[in-house]
């Protein structure tokens, strides 16, 4: 499992705009670079990131080989109800990681 750093508020007021910030450990190998033996290293990147809240997609991004290692992604969403945020990173070599966090909405 890749390590992740998440900055997600645990609680929010109803209607508040909250920022979700994510950082995941990944080499993001472009597929264009030669390795130590001169052979081109196969591409190994995260291709897609999705975030869904209570089953509904609230943010998605397609990643490309030009993105640096350990990609940092951040977005904002409106806290409507208490629920579960599911973050998912998918990529080459079967990379597939999911993190879930509860967000408590008050008021």
């Amino acid at each position, binding site marked *: 499992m890749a*390590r992740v*750093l998440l*900055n997600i508020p645990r609680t929010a007021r109803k209607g508040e705009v909250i920022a979700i910030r994510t*950082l995941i450990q990944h080499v*993001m190998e472009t597929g264009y670079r030669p390795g130590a033996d001169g052979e081109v290293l196969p591409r190994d990147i995260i291709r897609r990131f999705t975030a869904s809240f209570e089953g509904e997609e609230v943010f998605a991004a397609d990643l490309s080989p030009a993105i*640096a*290692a*350990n990609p*940092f992604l951040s977005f904002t969403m409106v806290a409507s109800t208490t629920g579960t945020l599911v973050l998912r990173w998918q990529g080459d070599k079967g990379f597939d990681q999911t993190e879930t966090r509860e967000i408590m909405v008050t008021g």
Partner: protein
Amino acid sequence: MTRLACILLLLPLCLSAAAEERRSGFQDMAPETQAMQQDDTANPGMLWVLEGETLWNAPAGPAGQPCAGCHGSAESAMRGVAARYPAWDEADAAPIDLAGRIQQCRAARQGAPPLPRESEELLALTAYVARQSRGLPITPPEDPRLDPARAEGRALYTERRGQLDLSCAQCHDENAGRRLAGSAIPQAHPTGYPLYRLEWQSLGSLQRRLRGCMTGVRAEPYAYGALEYVAIELYLAQRAAGMTLEAPAVRP
């Protein structure tokens, strides 16, 4: 005569002014990069710190003894340790840097397979241990046995090297604050190591940084772990005494 007296009087002032002007590479970074370093959820170096925490508590070696088994909680046991390295190693009767000490504990005390320099595991453990000294001043040991190595470090720092025939001092003392191609030349204070360098897209040690500066002037770098590096690290720590540790830092 008056002039001489004046110079003599001014000298301590000049020295203290120079000390105040010491700047961490952090201070000359773009605000975004500074923000990245200061936010633990945006600083990629924290990925290695997390890994290091896991390794600290993981059983290793024939006795299955984790680092924590002997040292307990790193938050208390390792607080301030990174701030006084490199230090004197009684066993080898030689100076040793923090990564070297961790390698030694791992091999000799845990009896676990050695961790090579710059391996992910060693970087992670070093980052985790160094993190416990974040915010503390660099306090080089007052151990006279380290003096010869410090003097050697100073000599290596001022010696011209490589096809470009440049010394560390020519860039980092005489031209610090100016620009070399796109990069600001920092004063070369070892406040942030191991650190995440955006150019490396990875965490790296101070020795990796020093190798980079050596190949930059087209000099042959020493092998990882060489005593020459430890000597330079000692001199740099002395030069930066009192400055605040910021590991794991971020640099461009």
